[in-house]
């Protein structure tokens, strides 16, 4: 879609250059040559004509090089309007409605070329300014008779209609191209979100299946009496399975949260070892760089890996930063550094409990 619009724009630009060149060479050049004796001074009129031709040549070069006028557009436009005023000043007022006044259409086409891609309003203002010079000229020369006005007015309406249509076409193509780009960006975003959602969904399905494989024997065991509900091990197995089910049911969002994903993976491992893990998260945090995530998880995960029976794992996102904390029984995790990169680590020991918290300040 975006490529189609770009191609269309390129072709439209070439078409407008061809129209402008054809107008200046096929219509305006003969008019200029046959009226050289009419102008008050001839050479500035010729120079003005050559200036316009030069601008069209530059446009041709820019098209070939695939570039736009950029900020040179405005001086070039000023030059064009200057030619309009100059030539008007050198045409005798009696000739304004006639063929000698070749710039009446030529200037407009150069303006359409220069204002390709710009807001239509700019072109309308430039054309209005250009046509106004003709009327000013007539007024100053005292030649504002109804017949003259009708002649010049008819010229302006016919010429202006073509030029405004061409300008409107470039503007519409630009508008369509922008809409297409926006639509494409939105589509890409939807696709990315869908891909993440699909991955999260697959992950949940896999975990549901794994959980079922663990829960089913527990339930059948309880039903047929081979597991005793009063037995500590049975209670423990049930508590762990329940915690995992609760966690799975509580998941509602399809966000790709890497930090939480990594923490959950470690919780999973601890649970497989028979540790009852209480995982709680609160608040929100941005996507964190890998080294920050590593710093946040390393020490807490080490405590988790030495937990004997139970652990509480929390991930908390506040205004000031993100922290990962683990309290566990065991206490054989060894000493921790006070900091790991941008992450600070605090440790509290209390009898057989060890509490390690890693904090990253945003």
């Amino acid at each position, binding site marked *: 879609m975006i490529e189609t619009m770009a191609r269309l724009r390129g072709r439209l630009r070439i078409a407008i250059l061809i129209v402008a060149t054809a107008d200046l060479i096929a219509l305006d050049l003969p008019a200029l040559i046959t009226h050289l004796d009419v102008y008050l001074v001839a050479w500035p009129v010729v120079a003005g004509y050559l200036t316009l031709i030069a601008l069209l040549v530059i446009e041709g070069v820019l098209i070939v090089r695939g570039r736009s006028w950029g900020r040179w557009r405005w001086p070039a436009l000023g030059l064009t309007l200057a030619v309009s005023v100059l030539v008007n000043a050198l045409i005798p007022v009696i000739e304004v409605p006639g063929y000698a006044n070749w710039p009446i259409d030529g200037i407009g086409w150069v303006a359409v070329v220069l204002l390709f891609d710009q807001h239509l309003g700019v072109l309308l203002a430039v054309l209005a300014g250009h046509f106004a010079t003709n009327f000013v000229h007539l007024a100053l020369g005292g030649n504002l008779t109804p017949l003259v006005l009708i002649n010049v007015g008819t010229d302006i309406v016919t010429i202006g209609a073509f030029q405004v249509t061409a300008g409107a076409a470039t503007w519409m193509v630009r508008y369509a191209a922008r809409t297409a780009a926006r639509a494409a960006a939105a589509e890409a975003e939807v696709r990315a979100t869908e891909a993440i959602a699909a991955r999260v969904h697959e992950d949940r399905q896999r975990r549901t299946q794994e959980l079922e494989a663990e829960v089913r024997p527990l339930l059948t065991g309880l039903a047929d009496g081979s597991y005793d509900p009063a037995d500590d091990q049975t209670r423990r197995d049930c508590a762990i399975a329940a*915690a995992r089910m*609760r966690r799975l*049911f*509580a998941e*509602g969002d399809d966000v790709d949260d890497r930090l939480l994903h990594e923490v959950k993976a470690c919780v999973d491992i601890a649970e497989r070892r028979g540790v009852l893990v*209480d995982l*709680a998260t*609160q*608040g*929100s945090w941005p996507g964190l760089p890998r080294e920050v995530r590593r710093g946040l998880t390393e020490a807490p995960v080490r405590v988790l890996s030495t937990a004997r029976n139970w652990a*509480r794992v*929390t991930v*908390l*996102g*506040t*205004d000031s930063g993100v*922290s990962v*904390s683990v*309290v566990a029984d065991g206490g054989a995790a060894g000493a921790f550094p006070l900091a790991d990169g941008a992450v600070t680590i*605090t440790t*509290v020991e*209390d009898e057989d*409990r060890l*509490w390690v*918290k890693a904090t990253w300040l945003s």
Partner: protein
Amino acid sequence: MGESDVAELITAVIVDDHPAIAAGVRAWCAAATPPVELIDAEGRIARAWTEPGASAQVVIFDLQLNGPPAFRELERLVDAGRQVIVYSGRSDRDTVLTCLDLGVFTYLTKAEGPDHLIPAIRAAAADLPYTSPSLGGVMSTDRRPSRPQLSEREMETLVAWFESDSKRLVAGKLGVSIKTVETYIDRVRIKYANTGRPARTKAALVERAIQDGLIAMEDLTG
């Protein structure tokens, strides 16, 4: 939350559509000393309004009864002056804060039941604040403009309470007594009771806290 001042038998009604949950809570209530008398509303809110549920001092309320969160029913219970403990599988901030603003007594996640439900029931019967770790976590991440102003110490205490689920660990970490930890947490709860939508239950909590000298009038108006 310390010793309960209520010596007589406490009655609670549980509104939860999962029979296993009600059965589990009944077992905890029976094992408590002194035991708590539990009425099972079998997932029907109407049974909390009719006897014997109507005169239960505490309502244990599962927010999701086969559908979206039952905030309207919750509001009606609170407006009737009932002490409601929301006992839910959800722990998302918006839900918890909505419940708190409606004027519930406290919010417990299902994972917190074994350790916190019985103490919360006792505190509710005595109009003493009770803040579960999950509720502490929610308060510490509250970013609404209408949130109450918390001191740095109160904030640290809340965060540590959420993380450790142990007042002793919090006390050890912050270098204060367990009593101080409790005071900080309770003061935050009172500050929340003093904001947002007015409710009789909130006013009772604030009034009791001022009587007990937990918080001064100036701390609430300032």
